[in-house]
């Protein structure tokens, strides 16, 4: 007996999968704590480092301290978004529930939408306390950069998502053996993302790699906004364009690996 079509069956299925994860967090305070633990810890470490340097030097170092805090906070947006998708998928795998989920009428794109929804919630739960702490302890207000922060957030979240679709694709291909990538893969991109230093610092041979990542453009844009108060629309356009390309590639990879998993029978034994 179907429910009212007003809500939309697709919307209810997406909410159903999100509810499954929200119920998990509601009943587990360690899980909730874990969401904010690392971003807050990072903020404390780098915040005190920046304060120490600022107290010993002049305004140039103070500006560098602000850049450092902005970078830490924004990079956490990408990290938490990526983990939000990948770990929500892993929760299904660990609970050996994928068989039930995949034989329900939930379409693959609806599952992706639910994972993205959970990623947004997890990211906000993790990063907002760190942003608040940066303001309270170090008088650093990320939102003082203006509305451009929304574009920084959006581009880094999208990057987190396509990286995680790559990770989920690898899990579909290689099983639970690939699950460590859920935590580590984006850390591996940190050196090329120019999070804490300009792209120009990188050796010439690595600069094209950095410029192929949306994150490098976001952080170049952040530094320009903090340093000069200017908005580098060119970097924002690059970040958005690259995200579109990478997201298309990751979606294609996910679709192919999902189909391949159905051919191989991996959906029956993926947790093993």
């Amino acid at each position, binding site marked *: *007996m*179907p*429910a*009212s079509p007003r809500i939309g*069956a697709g919307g*209810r*299925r997406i*909410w*159903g*999968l999100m*509810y*499954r994860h929200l*119920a*998990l967090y509601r*009943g*587990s305070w360690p899980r909730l704590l874990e969401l904010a633990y690392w971003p807050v810890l990072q903020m404390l470490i780098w915040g005190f480092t920046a304060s120490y340097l600022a107290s010993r030097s002049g305004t140039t170092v103070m500006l560098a301290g602000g850049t450092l805090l902005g970078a830490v906070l924004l990079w956490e947006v990408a990290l938490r978004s990526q983990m939000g998708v990948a770990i929500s998928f892993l*929760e299904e795998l660990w*609970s*050996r*529930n994928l*068989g*039930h*989920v*995949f*034989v*329900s*009428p*939930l*379409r693959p794109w609806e599952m992706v939408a639910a994972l993205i929804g959970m990623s947004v919630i997890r990211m906000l739960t993790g990063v907002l306390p760190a942003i608040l702490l940066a303001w309270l302890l170090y008088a650093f207000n990320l939102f003082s950069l203006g509305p451009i922060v929304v574009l920084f957030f959006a581009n880094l979240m999208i990057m987190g998502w396509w990286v995680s679709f790559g990770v989920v694709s690898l899990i579909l291909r290689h099983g639970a053996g690939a699950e460590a990538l859920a935590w580590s893969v984006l850390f591996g991109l940190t050196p090329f993302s120019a999070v804490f230093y300009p792209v120009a610092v990188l050796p010439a041979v690595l600069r094209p790699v950095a410029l192929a990542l949306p994150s490098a453009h976001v952080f170049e844009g952040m530094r320009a906004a903090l340093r000069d108060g200017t908005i580098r629309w060119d970097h924002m356009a690059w970040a958005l364009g690259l995200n579109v390309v990478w997201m298309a590639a990751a979606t294609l990879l996910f679709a192919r690996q999902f*189909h391949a998993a*159905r*051919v*191989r*029978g991996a*959906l*029956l034994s993926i947790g093993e």
Partner: protein
Amino acid sequence: MDVIEVDGLSKRYGTTLAVDAISFTVPAGATVGLLGGNGAGKTTTIAMLLGLLVPSEGRIRVLGYDMARNRFAALARMNFSSPYVSLPHRLTVTENLRVYGHLYNVAGIERRIRALAAELDLEALLDRPAGQLSAGQKTRVALAKSLINRPELLLLDEPTASLDPDTGDLVRGWLERYRAESGCTILLASHNMSEVERLCSHVLMLKRGRIVDAGSPQQLLERYGRDDLVEVFLDIARNRGRVLDEAAA
């Protein structure tokens, strides 16, 4: 009307043929058993019927839908239960049933959960995490999950595996009543001969991916001159069975 139509279905993993060109139909309202030993192809066949597994060859129609093209329309009207697929352990029974109520777009979820809890004697378990339940309780919860959308077709993979005789008997009795009241079609994979004999109107005997015999439990008993399906099973397992296609020829 046939609820399941399978035609020339095969599944190959590399050089291994797990299911070998089987064809069968399941009429509406019937309870059909897939009976066979380990590796006979029962779970593989059910996985293909559910769309979890893409067949190497052949066609499947479920509730009139071609599963290769329109599986989600069929999946909304069917459901599945297996002791080998878990429900999230940290969620309570109510939360688990609520999740699947949303996934199957069930109207009046809370009312449906209460009704299922009353029917399957789950009321005292509703607020308990699924992971803290006994095997018998988990089976009843899994059964409730599989009935949340009032399925027209129920696929059960060894529904009473690992249950004690008393709980197994309760589950079988409940399935009998549910089928009689709802007219639901059931396809049941099992090792348990007495279960198949009790529940099924028709039995498909599988061996090494092929249907080697088929008929009602009574017909099989008469054909093999045996008193129970265990002996029929052993006859077939020890190569005294026939392959339907060969018999027909």
